[in-house]
């Protein structure tokens, strides 16, 4: 199931050295390693908290993904950071 893959992506990002850097540098290449639906892939790229939860990702993992990508806890639902977007353009 793609939800397992989505969850595994987050746990790999957290637990495996280098994955977070790869995700931020080449998000499409990292996401291609996981059998995700188009909606899941886009929600990860958008770091879209509500969409990730609506797609079934556990809230704890959603938070981990966002926080590791520079989203502060209070801004989880309001930020405008996206993967693959230069910091000065976000």
């Amino acid at each position, binding site marked *: 199931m793609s939800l*397992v893959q989505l*969850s595994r992506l987050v*746990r790999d990002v957290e637990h495996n050295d280098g994955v977070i850097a790869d995700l931020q540098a080449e998000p499409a290449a990292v996401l291609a390693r996981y059998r995700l639906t188009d909606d899941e892939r886009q929600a990860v790229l958008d770091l879209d*908290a509500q969409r990730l939860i609506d797609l079934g990702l556990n*809230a704890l993992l959603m*938070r981990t993904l966002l926080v590791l990508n520079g989203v502060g806890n*209070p801004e989880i639902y309001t930020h405008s950071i996206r993967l693959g977007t230069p910091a000065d353009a976000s």
Partner: protein
Amino acid sequence: MAQLVYAGATSHVSGIIRTPDASPQYTDLLDSAWKRMSADLKAAEPDVVIIIGTDHQETYGLENYPVFAIGQADEYPAWNEHGIPGETSTGAPEISGALHEALVHGGIDLSVSMEMPLDHGYTVPIQRLELEGLPIVPLFINCNQPPLPTLTRARKLGEALRNAIHQLPEDLNVAVLATGGLSHWVALPQQGEINEEWDDRFLTLVTNGDLDAITRMTDGQILEEAGNGALEIRTWVAAAACAGGTGGERLAYAPMHSWVTGIGIVELEVAR
């Protein structure tokens, strides 16, 4: 025959270790309670501490997510997720194995983890209560990946654990510590809210030994009133049932907005 010599419950948020003085008006209250809990637990001279907690999607994933699981390792590394401090804890694999067998034979079909890194749900109370030198047995209850075991099932786990402790093949002293709760919303838009009235009501039920009233709560009610983090009260229910369900003493409560959770600290009566 082994005996249960101590039982208690405490919240486990990482702020306890990272920012202990985050709300100075509550520092002395909480510090005194945890110091007393630590002293009382150690004075009971336990040979092993069973820590009933949960996992925040660090150890277990959707590939195979247990409802209940018991650690049976000789040591338990700390995840140190998000930089949360924590050291490797010493296990008691023979005691774990005996408890596992007794629990399964007692009607609780739980999984076993012979490798079980621990997250802050375990490592924070270990550090705050200075339990580093004591062997532990981590007991996991699924508190965040629905469907969750019912509160009634958590109570039955606790009752079976009480019997399992008494069946341990040696004259061991055993302590039980629950970790989790109270009201808090984790990674949800309401994050930061605390329901002091709900926390007070829950703590009163625990200290009155009213497990019947607690187990009548539905997850929907808990989610609505106290947030997804309050679903961790399963650990408290199991510990209270293990202690005999006769009540206890509230050592402290503080609505710790700086830690985004209500903090409760309770010692449970151990019924003989």
